[in-house]
């Protein structure tokens, strides 16, 4: 348990992806079976314990600790599980300090699995008595389902791939047929066993991705070799219905079926479709990304949400149909099969991503500049003969996004960065002018600039500080003295959580406008004009006064 608790501790404080990878790979090398498998399952949240409610932790603790001392401690620490883990006193009658005891993660999980719901509190209590402080924290996060260490399932799979020296797509393909603690997988990765056979019904197939179109790329490409499609601003998904199993996967292989029961119910075919998940408005048009967000990241979904934001799949590609793997076939063959299949699908839930009439790159540029729907974020180019290759193969698929929106905003606050950027003011809050001549903060950006620009901004921030609050500095932001930042962003939505009433999507610094006086920066009104029309019957009452 100690080794696992150490890993969680380090992961929680390690910001960089590569650092996290190394920590997990080292853990996989050091921890024995089945601990390392359980450890991975805990990180990817495939381990469901949820044995104990947080309120119960508090009562376990206050049976042993004075309630007032507990309250003072909780107030200071701010996290219930952490407070209980730190405060947990030895059981009455046991020697202090306790003799060192380090039950294995596997043993702890077996104990918890064996306990009934009624026994769980007592089992947790007895485990707490056997563990040290940081292991107690790990245990409590496991049993309350609150384990968050900033590691995506995708990153954990990458760590498994690095550990075993295999490609991550091999892990992804197998993943949904495996169950913790994944012993056949580790036997294979250790070189002691055969590669497990994918046993899952409706398995995930690693996704093919596009390269961003470079400036010179089109010169070398013949329009006749490619098909063009819109790039829709939804969520890339894979809808699989095979051997009685139906699943909806994100592009990283996370199972998101639970959030979209309406779409899953409509998967009555034997195929694997690659497409874009969108939601519709009541009038049938495609809703914006912010409406789609209402349906994301939920375990369950309410009837009202199903009605208001019905899920829809816009099909791009067909990977498998009636037991046949189509991925080695050229795009055109797969597309023909997709068209044949789509004719049999519920048009209320599915449609085809249309192919665009493009004879020259000028046609394409014209289409890209004026797309017919606000939910389009650019165009895609796919080689007619491209097989479906997992990852981001060179030269087959390209994306050409619309130019992002840009505004000129004024730097208002700068915050010190972490890790590599410790010592630099690297997180910037920027604002726009309001009608009363003051600046309203509209967003935060912390990338988009070069290291050299970071140094310049940092120097400027230090020399122009007006106030300091902990790691944050307010800087001079007056009409004739301040720093103008050109901020690029992908989209805009109304927001009640932002003081300005608008929220930007992916804001980033696109240019430093040392040349521009802050008085000439944009106004909040300019930004509001970029907002999409509010959907009918919704939101109109929330428009700013």
């Amino acid at each position, binding site marked *: 348990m100690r080794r696992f608790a150490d890993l969680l501790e380090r992961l929680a404080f390690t910001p960089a992806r590569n650092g996290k990878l190394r920590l997990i790979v*080292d853990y996989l090398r050091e921890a024995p079976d089945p601990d390392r498998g359980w450890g991975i399952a805990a990180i990817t949240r495939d381990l469901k314990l949820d044995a104990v409610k947080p309120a119960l932790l508090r009562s376990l603790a206050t049976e042993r600790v004075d309630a007032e*001392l507990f309250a003072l401690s909780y107030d200071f620490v701010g996290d219930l599980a*952490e407070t209980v883990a730190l*405060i947990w006193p030895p059981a009455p009658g046991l020697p202090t300090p306790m003799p060192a005891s380090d039950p294995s993660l596997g043993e702890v999980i077996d104990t918890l699995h064996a306990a009934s719901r009624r026994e769980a509190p007592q089992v947790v209590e007895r485990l707490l008595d056997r563990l040290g402080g940081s292991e107690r924290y790990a245990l409590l996060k496991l049993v309350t389902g609150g384990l968050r260490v900033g590691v995506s399932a995708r990153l954990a799979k990458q760590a498994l791939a690095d550990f075993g020296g295999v490609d991550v797509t091999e892990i992804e393909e197998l993943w949904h047929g495996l169950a913790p603690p994944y012993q056949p997988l580790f036997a294979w990765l250790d070189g002691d066993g055969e590669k497990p056979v994918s046993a899952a019904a409706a398995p995930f197939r690693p996704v093919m991705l596009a390269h961003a179109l470079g400036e010179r790329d089109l010169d070398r490409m013949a329009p006749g070799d490619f098909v063009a499609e819109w790039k829709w601003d939804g969520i890339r998904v894979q809808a699989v219905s095979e051997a009685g199993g139906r699943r909806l996967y994100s592009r990283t292989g996370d199972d998101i079926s639970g959030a979209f029961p309406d779409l899953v119910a409509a998967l009555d075919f034997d195929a694997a479709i690659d497409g874009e998940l969108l939601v519709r408005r009541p009038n049938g048009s495609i809703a914006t990304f912010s409406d789609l967000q209402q349906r994301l990241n939920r375990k369950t979904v309410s009837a009202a949400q199903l009605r208001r934001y019905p899920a829809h799949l816009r099909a791009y590609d067909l990977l498998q149909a009636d037991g046949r793997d189509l991925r080695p076939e050229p795009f055109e063959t797969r597309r023909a099969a997709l068209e044949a299949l789509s004719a049999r699908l519920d048009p209320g839930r599915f449609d085809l991503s249309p192919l665009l009439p493009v004879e020259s790159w000028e046609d394409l540029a014209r289409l890209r500049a004026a797309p017919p729907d606000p939910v389009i974020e650019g165009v895609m180019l796919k080689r007619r003969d491209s097989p479906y290759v997992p990852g981001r193969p060179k030269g087959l698929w390209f994306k050409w996004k619309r130019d992002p929106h840009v505004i000129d905003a004024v730097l208002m606050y700068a915050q010190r960065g972490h890790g590599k950027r410790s010592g630099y003011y690297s997180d910037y809050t920027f604002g726009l002018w309001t009608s009363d001549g003051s600046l309203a903060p509209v967003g935060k950006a912390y990338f988009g600039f070069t290291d050299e620009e970071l140094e310049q901004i940092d120097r400027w921030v230090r020399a122009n500080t007006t106030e300091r609050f902990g790691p944050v500095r307010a800087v001079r932001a007056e009409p004739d003295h301040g720093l103008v930042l050109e901020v690029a962003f992908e989209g805009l939505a109304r927001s009640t959580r932002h003081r300005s009433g608008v929220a930007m999507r992916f804001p980033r610094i696109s240019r430093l406008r040392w040349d521009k006086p802050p008085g000439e920066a944009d106004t909040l009104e300019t930004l509001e004009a970029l907002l999409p029309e509010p959907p009918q019957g919704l939101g109109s009452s929330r428009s700013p006064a």
Partner: protein
Amino acid sequence: MRPADLLQSRPEGLYCPPGDFFIDPVRPVARALVTHAHSDHATSGHGAVLATRETLDIMAIRMGEGFAGSVQPLRYGERVAIGEVATTFHPAGHVLGSAQIEVERGGFRIVAAGDYKRTPDPTCAAFEPVRGDVFITEATFGLPVFRHPEPLAEAGRLLQSLTQFPERTHLIGVYALGKAQRLIALLRAAGHDGPIFVHGALRRLCDYYAERGVALGDLPDATIERGRSRDFAGQIVLGPPSAFASAWVRRFADPLIGFASGWMQVRARARQRGVELPLVISDHCDWTELTTTIDELDPTEVWVTHGREEALVRWCSLTGRPARPLHLVGYEDEAED
């Protein structure tokens, strides 16, 4: 005699009327007895300062020779009459030279422990339990959530990170007095005998510790020529907390930032500092040490100074000990833990 006739809180600090002196005054006074040289306890401008040799030396290093009108060094255990009282300094185990101050008059005895700890520390003399009618304790980590882990194991975590990330400079924030030398000693005890690089602000105090016989090993300067940032890859570099807000950090390639402090036990605190490697190493008592010390000394009354007075007073009342907070002002909770 009432205890408050012997020692009482004043805005300047803890005052002894029959001896006409203050303990750790935060403003200039005629006569000050100083427990240790941390800047919130040792201030300049007093008429006379009585403290251990080490505390006086460190005050001179930090504030310059003329920090007080006159100074008088005291040895641990040496009984000195001041006015109508007798005072004795006893080791506190906090940092080099740190002392508890025992004040006695007519057989009535108050022990002001200053900052102290009970965990063994090779860089200073160990805390010596002194019984008195009143025990004045700090409460910096006076909450039952504070139970410091084994410090040698924390040093081990730093060394493990060094083997896991051999290409990164491990930049560790430490307070200049006490924590820096303690961490170095712990790293030596954990088997790290290579160089440990130190920021200029730590240099004089590390040298002073070495002069006083605390072996710290090879401590080169953490100065780099431009463009040589890679020289520190896989090395341990120690700096004071203030350096982490400055441009100094940027000289190192791909730094891994750590911080050694008792506060690192609370995750939110570690996150606030943007620390990647929090090391829970404290020069104060944790909750267990505080409460077992009070039990062991068994004073008639407990006075609680800076920190989480409320919780420790609550514990005293639960165990049937008269206790009260002193509400002294000016001691910084987190200045140099």
